[in-house]
């Protein structure tokens, strides 16, 4: 990106008109423009579909909708809007748990691969991590329910016994954590699912750190950790944030794993060790869809619209953070 490299690009475009590769050049221009436009069109089409299909449910009064859709019960404090509120809260809560757990681990993995591991081990490990990303979410769900949840239950009990005074670790009323199918479990499984994305992107960013910066830091007597803090992190910060947001995007939309693991409920509770408190939008839609009537489907699509908006907001936020910091680093 230095000025000397830019000079070929500033040549007048007319020169390419008679170039032997001109046709191919134009072809690829249209192909890439088309691909870009296709994405925009798809996004617009999805947004339009969601709005049109959700409209009958959104425009109807809460009481009327409650009469026609079995899972909407305004009299129990579960009108469409309230359900969306509970679900947005649950979705964000579980995704944030996943992010809090996954980010440090992923950054650690990425650093290990890029700066600590012997080259041969690093490569093998990189492949293994990428392999994790290829495991279907239903497999994670099955594994979570059959293996992880029973395994974690005693640990949750311990957490509740000793840290139960912190509201988020409060056990159910009986004081006994009788099931591991709680928000924390869903968050842990989601964390495992998003580790590959975050670590793969961070790894690539860390590998881009200019060798000169690193060597300069080491030459000044910095230890390896100090070198990473002084050279690698500042350089890779925006990349790390981008990677985290990509992970968050996946966590927000994950359905099967959450559906299979969590014992769902609709509340604004902060107790992540209690079942029947939280659910995510995607999992709720999957639960209710099979038996929903037409208006029920409209209502579920309205919830899908909410998820779409959240995901869009998260991605825009990520873009904004990355662009704001881009001037300080060479990652872009």
């Amino acid at each position: 990106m230095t000025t000397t490299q830019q000079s070929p690009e500033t040549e007048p475009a007319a020169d390419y008109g008679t170039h032997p590769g001109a046709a191919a050049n134009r072809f690829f221009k249209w192909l890439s423009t088309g691909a870009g436009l296709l994405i925009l069109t798809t996004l617009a089409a999805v947004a339009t579909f969601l709005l049109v299909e959700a409209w009958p449910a959104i425009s109807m009064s809460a009481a009327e909708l409650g009469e026609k859709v079995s899972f909407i019960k305004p009299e129990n404090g579960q009108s469409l809007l309230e359900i969306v509120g509970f679900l947005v809260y649950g979705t964000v809560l579980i995704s944030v748990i996943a992010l809090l757990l996954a980010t440090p681990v992923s950054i650690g993995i990425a650093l290990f691969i890029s700066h600590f591991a012997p080259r041969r081990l690093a490569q093998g490990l990189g492949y293994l991590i990428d392999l994790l990303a290829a495991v279907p979410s239903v497999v994670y769900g099955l594994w979570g329910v059959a293996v992880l949840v029973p395994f974690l239950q005693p640990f949750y009990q311990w957490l509740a016994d000793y840290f139960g005074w912190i509201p988020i670790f409060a056990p159910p009323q009986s004081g006994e954590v009788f099931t591991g199918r709680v928000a924390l479990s869903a968050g842990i499984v989601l964390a495992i699912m998003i580790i590959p994305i975050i670590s793969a992107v961070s790894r690539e960013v860390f590998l881009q750190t200019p060798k000169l910066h690193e060597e300069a830091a080491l030459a000044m007597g910095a230890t390896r950790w100090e070198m990473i803090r002084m050279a690698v992190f500042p350089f890779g910060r925006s990349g790390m944030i981008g990677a985290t947001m990509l992970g968050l995007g996946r966590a927000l939309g994950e359905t099967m794993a959450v559906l299979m693991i969590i014992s769902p409920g609709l509340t604004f509770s902060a107790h992540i060790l209690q079942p029947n408190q939280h659910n995510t939008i995607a999992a709720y839609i999957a639960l209710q869809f099979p038996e929903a009537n037409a208006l029920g489907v409209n209502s579920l699509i309205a919830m899908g619209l909410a998820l779409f908006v959240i995901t869009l907001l998260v991605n825009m936020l990520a873009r904004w953070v990355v662009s704001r910091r881009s001037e300080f680093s060479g990652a872009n």
Partner: protein
Amino acid sequence: MKAFTRSGVVLTAAALSLSLAACTASNEAPAGDSSAESTDAAMTELSGNLQGAGASSQESAMDAWRAGFQSANADVTVGYDPVGSGGGIEQFLAGAVPFAGSDGLLDESEYATAVERCSGDGGAYHLPMYISPVAVIFNLEGVDSINLDAETIANIFDGKITTWDDEAIASQNAGVELPSTNITVVYRSDSSGTSDNFTDYLEQASNGAWPYEATKEFATAADQSVGADGTSAVVDTVSTTDGAIGYADASRAASLGTVALKVGEEYVPYSAEAAAAIIAASPLSESANGENDLAYAIDRTTTDSSAYPLTLVSYHIVCSQYEDETERALVTAFEKYVASEEGQAAAAEAAGSAPLPADLSAQVTAILDEIAAA
């Protein structure tokens, strides 16, 4: 070459006479019974595509019915979209499918729409085709069966009874050693006809101990409860949780302990016969569309102790009259097969449902015979 041709002719002739003989035989046999003859004739001519949609509870039974009917009528394709009862009714009323599967009954406005949708003024009929007992299952080591009345079950599922050695349970189970384990309530977290029937049973039979309305989405105040998505997950959760109690389709109760329900003065364990008997013990729904509309208001409060009141009855909803003769022939032939002993046996094997009693099966067939084309 010549000899070869001749033998070919002989073979053809033999085959022809054979098939002729078969023809006359099959035509002669039912000569005395005109209705049987007409169905036989219809069976052999049937071809086309029959699409249904509706309750997912019938899915595995429907697979068996489709396979059985298609193997008897090679030119017919039957499809069934398990979109759920609500979706099935909607598609049926919109005229998209000629029949719907439903766990519930049509409501007043849907009955009215059905009159417009169907040819003639007869509207639509419910035909009970799939009867399946729902078992209350539990996991207590060394206990295979316990006796409970609806009120106690309601209190357990509502979280008012929290341990297995509670007096309310113990008093009904003299001689059974009940541990002091906490009760974990396992419920269906997805929307389902099983939950609907279970809560309907609790609402009707528990003398007010179940303060909620019947609903497809199980809701409970029990503190120690776990939701699971689908029958398999419920059964799985109950099997892996000591002291758990849940409800599931009886065919899936497998090795778990099951509850015998108090009916009248006796405790009735689930069985195919007892499940079918509840239909005989129940009146037709008040809003039923004439006597041909077999829409039952299942009487869960029955005191007839040959019946098992916690039973899911799933219907096929058909028109009383079809515009198109081919459609009518397809629907009635298929539904007759479904109601037949053979069809019910196929469903029992595939889905573990309770076969229709013979008289009900005959009644359904008679109704189907009356369905006409415009």
